[in-house]
């Protein structure tokens, strides 16, 4: 099963399991979404449960607020994360705040799914990674899976959650990784990172499509006799400080790999955690290995921007030799 199938499976299970779940968005119904993530769901669950919305992102997020207030569990698809900005006001002002504003009276069990990230030779606005923007907003939870298995379990957890979740899907690896995924319903707790590979020389924190690049870099590093511990963050917020701190206390070194821009990003947060929680164990400055603070170039220039295993290896070596 690839990640597209896994997300589809999670939605299918939750639609079957809970009649409060409503899945909608642009082209989500008949066509099954531009990435076919919701394919077949309308036919199976009916046009009241799975349907095409008018083409309006603020409308998607805003109506989800109303549905949630009235007791439903809307799962909304933003066609691309780069198209979500018209919904920013609704997400920041209401999705994230209604529960607090109403003193717990109106819960906002909303999941906003959005494919994100570069590397697919796309037009403008289709390649960015704005997880730090969502992670910065009080009231939201932000998840990013890196495998089909995690995608299914994390999405089920997100839909079961009573808090609003921004669920970012690394579209570059939508179909790139195939994996055995259990048929049954299972969930992966939010806020828990996963140590993918144990290592002793350096901790590399990443998530989403960057995990695959980091794994390649770790294989290259092994040839240089560098032992890399890889942490898949999985949850941008809540962030798993403890797993990061424990690892850094062990290895004494940490770099964070993101395809997002550098300044004010998740990588800065990881560096801060390393310094606040493991300062006396550090043998090198925590390093941010990220995209540039630029707009992701159009396909002909995108290779300059994209993270490569070699670039990660280069930064691993620099940090280990510091």
């Amino acid at each position: 099963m690839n990640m597209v199938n896994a997300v589809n499976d999670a939605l299918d299970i939750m639609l079957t399991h809970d009649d409060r779940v409503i899945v909608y968005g642009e082209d989500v119904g008949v066509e099954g979404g531009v990435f076919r993530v919701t394919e077949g769901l309308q036919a199976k669950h009916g046009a009241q449960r799975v349907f095409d919305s008018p083409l309006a992102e603020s409308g998607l997020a805003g109506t989800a607020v109303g549905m949630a207030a009235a007791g439903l569990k809307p799962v909304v698809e933003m066609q691309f994360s780069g198209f979500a900005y018209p919904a920013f006001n609704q997400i920041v002002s209401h999705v994230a705040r209604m529960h607090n504003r109403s003193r717990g009276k109106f819960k906002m069990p909303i999941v906003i799914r959005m494919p994100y990230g570069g590397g697919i030779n796309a037009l403008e606005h289709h390649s960015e990674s704005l997880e730090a923007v969502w992670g910065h907003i009080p009231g939201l939870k932000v998840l990013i899976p890196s495998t089909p298995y995690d995608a299914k379990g994390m999405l089920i957890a997100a839909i079961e959650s009573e808090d609003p979740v921004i669920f970012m899907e690394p579209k570059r690896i939508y179909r790139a990784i195939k994996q055995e995924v259990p048929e049954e319903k299972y969930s992966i707790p939010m806020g828990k990172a996963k140590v993918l590979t144990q290592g002793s020389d350096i901790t590399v924190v990443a998530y989403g499509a960057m995990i695959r690049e980091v794994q390649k870099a770790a294989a290259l590093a092994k040839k240089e006799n560098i032992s890399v511990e890889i942490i898949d963050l999985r949850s941008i917020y809540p962030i798993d400080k403890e797993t990061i701190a424990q690892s850094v206390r062990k290895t004494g070194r940490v770099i964070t790999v993101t395809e997002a821009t550098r300044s004010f990003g998740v990588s800065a947060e990881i560096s801060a955690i390393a310094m606040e929680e493991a300062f006396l164990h550090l043998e090198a400055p925590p390093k941010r290995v990220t995209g540039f603070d630029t707009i992701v170039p159009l396909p002909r220039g995108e290779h300059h921007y994209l993270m490569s295993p070699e670039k990660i290896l280069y930064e691993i070596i620099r940090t280990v030799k510091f």
Partner: protein
Amino acid sequence: MFTEYHPTKKKRFQVMDNDGKIINKKYFPDLSDAQVLKAYKDMLFARTADLMVVSYQRQGRIYTYPPNYGQEAIAGAVAQQIRHDDWVVPAFREMGLYLAKGATLKELFLYFMGYEDGSRFEKSNHMLPMSVPIASQLLHAAGIGYEINYRRKDEIVYTFVGDGGTSEGDFHEALNFAGVWKAPVIFIVQNNQYGISTPFRMQTASEGIAIKAMAYGIAGIQVDGNDFFAMYEAVKRSVAHIQEGKGPVLIEAVTYRKGAHTTSDDPTKYRTKEEEEQWDCTDPLKRLKAYLETRGVYNHEMEAQLIDEYKKETDRQFIEAENYPAYPLEDAFRFMYVDMPDDLKQQQTEHERFLKWKEAKQ
């Protein structure tokens, strides 16, 4: 009614003239004198409380407040017919309706004194808190409407926005979504002629708001929003329209904000005395009072007595709100999430540690 007063006919729906005389008997609502008297009393209560809040604000006893003064018939007309399970999705200038929906003055005061507790509306089942980001609430109404249809319930959503709010994209999106979904929503635009200081003609080149309904394939009607009977009947027929499965309705309630936008602005800067006097003749309470006096069921003595009673009640609830317990640190944190992240708990604990340190130092 929706055909007779179709927006293209450029007719404003009116039942009563400025002197309280019924000029459109065909549409006079089926209301007894006692019912009309109750409606008037509710509106008078809202007005009395509203004017008192402005004076509390001037005394520095409450923060910024958006007055309802002059617009009471709109919320008042809905308040007289809203059913227990109907929804209210407010903007922030519909006091009479919040009260009818179970909110208390004390809660409203708490909100404007700076407590989120004032938005909980403990005794109200289906009312969202006031919405500050202009027009954003209209989409919530459409979403609630979806749920009502999905669950096949017989409920109506009443949602509100001002004339300024109709310039927002969310106004368009909400009417569009609601139209496509045939959501049971009554969109009420309180066209009070100003968005803070910006006059209606600077908001839109359209001759009015009601006509915009046509673009969404829904019913629209322009109503004299200061005419209680016209508002009442328009709302009643909108409910029937929805119950017949014909989808949402857009009501443009033409009114005038006699007060400021909020206590922070000064209307003398952007409108003239002449204009204010002209609109004074259309005052919703004045007109309904004239009607009741003609019917022989109301007089000056009753009015004086009621105002006195309402002032005391307002003051009582205001003082209760003033004596509300101090805002505990915990309240800033506890409703951020249903399942609060450990890190957030830790932030609270860290701050509490600091407070203990500070206390020990003093």
